[in-house]
């Protein structure tokens, strides 16, 4: 009993320490951000490896989430005689919730962990130290471009995810379940709001993008310089980012939901 309490306390204090270190790291990063614009090449390279290379996964995920959403909601809507609202239902769920959240989770698994292990390996093989000794600041050269690229990529990926999802729902709903195509789109127009839904979805995915990318570079930068440390950094990035995303999602949904 006391042992498990102790374990709880240890993991809690670890969490608190990580959080504190994380905040310090974030503050240290801020002054570097404006100067990063001077080297756009570094950022595009990272957008390529973090964003563009995640594209297939995101499109695949979005499409199938959309189709499943349409299939699932169809029977319920049929019961209430509201089958026409299928498009509105699916796209609102996608744009508000599933798009930002699932995209961020997939991004954390695909790109966040990759950043953590890449930077961690650079730490382990003295590459960061070598840069430091060549009078090149690794925060400016390595960390900040990856961070910015992540922040840019996630909202774009989320938008692509939602679009693929709506198209998936359209294919299943209209071509398989026989919902009227006109009704499908007009209900979306009616029900989904640009600011309340699309805007808040993009805002959410921006916040998620910041947390996922920050976590990846942070864990990598402070990884223990050995094989275990690198793999731990990747794992922790995925786990902690996922917890954060779900937590943030709850808070942000509460904040942006009209009438809550």
């Amino acid at each position, binding site marked *: 009993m006391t042992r498990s309490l102790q374990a709880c306390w240890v993991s809690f204090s670890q969490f608190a320490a990580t959080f504190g270190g994380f905040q310090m790291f974030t503050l240290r990063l801020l002054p570097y951000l404006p100067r990063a614009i001077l080297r756009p090449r570094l950022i595009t390279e990272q957008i390529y490896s973090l964003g563009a290379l995640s594209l297939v996964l995101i499109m695949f995920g979005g499409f199938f989430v959309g189709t499943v959403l349409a299939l699932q909601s169809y029977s319920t809507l049929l019961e209430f005689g509201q089958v026409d609202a299928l498009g509105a239902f699916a796209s609102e769920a996608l744009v508000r919730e599933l798009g930002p959240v699932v995209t961020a989770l997939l991004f954390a698994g695909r790109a966040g962990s990759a950043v953590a292990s890449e930077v961690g*390996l*650079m730490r382990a*093989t*003295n*590459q960061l*130290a*070598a*840069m*430091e*000794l*060549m*009078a*090149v*600041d690794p925060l400016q*050269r390595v960390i900040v471009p990856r961070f910015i690229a992540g922040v840019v990529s996630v909202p774009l990926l989320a938008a692509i995810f939602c679009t693929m999802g709506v198209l998936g729902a359209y294919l299943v709903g209209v071509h398989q379940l026989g919902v009227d195509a006109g009704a499908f789109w007009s209900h979306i127009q009616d029900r989904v709001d640009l600011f309340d839904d699309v805007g808040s979805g993009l805002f959410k995915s921006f916040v998620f993008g910041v947390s996922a990318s920050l976590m990846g570079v942070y864990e990598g930068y402070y990884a223990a310089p050995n094989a275990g440390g690198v793999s731990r950094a990747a794992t922790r990035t995925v786990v902690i980012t996922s917890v954060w995303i779900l937590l943030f999602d709850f808070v942000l949904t509460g904040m942006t939901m009209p009438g809550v």
Partner: protein
Amino acid sequence: MLSHKKPPNIIEIQDVRYSRGKRAIFDGLNMNFPRGAVSAVMGPSGTGKTTLLNLITGQLVPDDGAVLFDGKVVCPCSRHGLYNTRRQIGVLFQDGALLTDLNVFENVAFPLREHTRLPEQLIRQIVLMRLNSVGLRAAWQRMPSELSGGMARRVGLARALVMDPKLIIYDEPFTGLDPIAVGVILRLIRQTNDVLGITSIVVTHDVAEAEMLADLIFLISEGKVVASGSPLDMQQKASSMVRQFMQGLADGPVPFHYPGTSYADQLQTMSRT
């Protein structure tokens, strides 16, 4: 008028104290590295050779005392000043520490691209010249993962030299290399030092190589310099510590057994539980 005569020692370590936690690593360390010479820093593992390297490059700050580079204190108090100092120091890491996502050419070009705005044409010439001097001009397109340990170190050397440093520090340059690669590195260190007229510090525990290479050897143990001098001097020193290290004896001032209770005591206590 102040005279602009350069100080005779490129690095002066003055009474440096440094401790990690409660363990004192350096306790009043004094060293002078003369300009133009190849100095070897030797000592048993765990005597803080790497810490010394970090103190010289300003990655660590001494608790007390000072490290002077070219007559000026190395201090991370101003990032700008520190980076200015570091630009004049080349460091070759044990494994080369090449950037794994860049090829050989880009690795060597890296400091130039970061610090200068030279035209591409000129960068190409400088890089190829440096690669040629380490004998790897033809390998310019290879990725670091395709290089052997010795080749990676040679690329690292080319990179360390590309900014024309005044001082170059080698961290364990011979470890884990086959005899041919060791011979190549030995020759390269000596050649670079003499041809370019720079100063070299080699941190190593390979006695034979250090004796072949160095003009001056420092032997550090327990936070202090226990002996220094030319290789010949060191051979003749009578101190038991120097003899143990230089001749590679298993037991001596550095004991074979990790200090602790006696064997008999431990057997007794462990059988009781």
